[in-house]
């Protein structure tokens, strides 16, 4: 089986790895680079637990081949906090108990950050549609949506 050499920038750091064609970006992140924050839920792009930013676009890492990311920039949940401090979005999710089991949370956080970068003042409807591809089986979504709206307001006033 031939392997392809891939060089990519993940959370600001350069990473080089050898990749088999069938390996997804999620496989590479979790199994080759030990970046296990991105979760595998469905592995078919339905649940959003593996949401990452690929060249500033929100994507499911399970639907990207590892070999495709040569020369690309990737941001994962591991790049969200700075130093020891949590990102405001992460802190708000804790404060408002917007998570229970936590499997969907990294994907929801990455997707939320992407939304608030694009739209600083989203309506509840916009939040719900934007996050429709992030499935959560614990919270019933209400606490997640409230946390996103509240942190958006905090970030606007910061």
């Amino acid at each position, binding site marked *: 089986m031939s392997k392809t050499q891939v060089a990519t920038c993940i959370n600001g750091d350069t990473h080089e790895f050898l990749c088999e064609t069938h390996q997804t970006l999620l496989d590479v992140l979790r199994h080759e680079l030990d970046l296990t924050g991105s979760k595998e839920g469905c592995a078919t792009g339905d649940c959003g637990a593996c*949401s990452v930013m690929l060249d500033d676009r929100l994507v499911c890492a399970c639907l990207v*081949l590892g070999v*495709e990311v040569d020369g690309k920039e990737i941001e994962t949940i591991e790049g969200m906090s700075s130093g020891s401090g949590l990102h405001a979005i992460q802190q708000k999710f804790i404060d408002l108990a917007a998570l229970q089991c936590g499997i969907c949370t990294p994907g929801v956080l990455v997707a939320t950050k992407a939304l608030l970068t694009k739209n600083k003042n989203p309506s509840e409807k916009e939040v719900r549609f934007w996050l429709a*591809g992030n499935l959560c089986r614990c919270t019933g979504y209400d606490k997640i949506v409230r946390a996103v709206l509240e942190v958006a307001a905090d970030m606007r006033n910061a």
Partner: protein
Amino acid sequence: MEYVTPKSASEASQALSQEGAFALAGGTDLLVKLKTRFVSPSVIVDIKHIPNIMTIKQSAEGWWIGAATPCAEIVEHDSLSKDWPGVVEALSLIGSTQIQGRATLGGNLCNASPAADSIPALIAAGATCVISGQVKEREEPVEKIVTAPGVTTLGKGEFIIGFKLPIPKNRSGDAYLRLIPRSEMDIAVVGAGVSLSLSEDGKIEAIRVALGAIAPTQVLLSGLEDIFIGKEPNDDAIQKLVSLAEKACKPIKDKRGTIEYRTKIAGVLAKRAFGIALKRANNY
């Protein structure tokens, strides 16, 4: 399984003519098929490195939408959205935000699902696709591509490099509506695309209506000319449109809807999409 990144259309056609070669654009269908072992390619040809395949351009001839442009990028294109709001709203309905970041028009067409959202809107808009092949490039209307679920008219080594849409005439409008059982994250029970142009005195000059998810392939309605062309739209004409839409239906029955339900909805959506397209034409 090998992976190649051709830098030109001819190189890609050559790679795709190998036995077991599959084209990769956004991967939102292909990767799922790989995982479920629905396909087992010997080589994956990543077509995203070919010039113009990921660009949106406007010229005197019209619009060019690269076949591998992610839907999210197309949705963000303001002047294209102004010219072809129906096409853009159709492709914006494909999947979640994450899927939008990768999914492409070329992929939506070549995946050839009866329920694909972009296809009825593209057919209604009169879009053509430019197909690259080993010998020559050819251009075909979108309605000539899908022949059955999962089956297209593309030959060995052929792939779609981009789509062409005209610059709409004054007083033109298009619209796409679909019905799904939930508000997001589902596939169409029925989809309806309408595109029309009006003359200065408000009579219909041109009209195309295409339906999705109501037959093995998308259906471009015929017989609209006699009803609409050269006339002002009225209730009687709209009722005839509803009947034509219902008659075009040869749907399956599944958990999303019965045959009767899909048939009824096809008429309703055709009528409503017509109303939106007409309103847009009056304001364009």
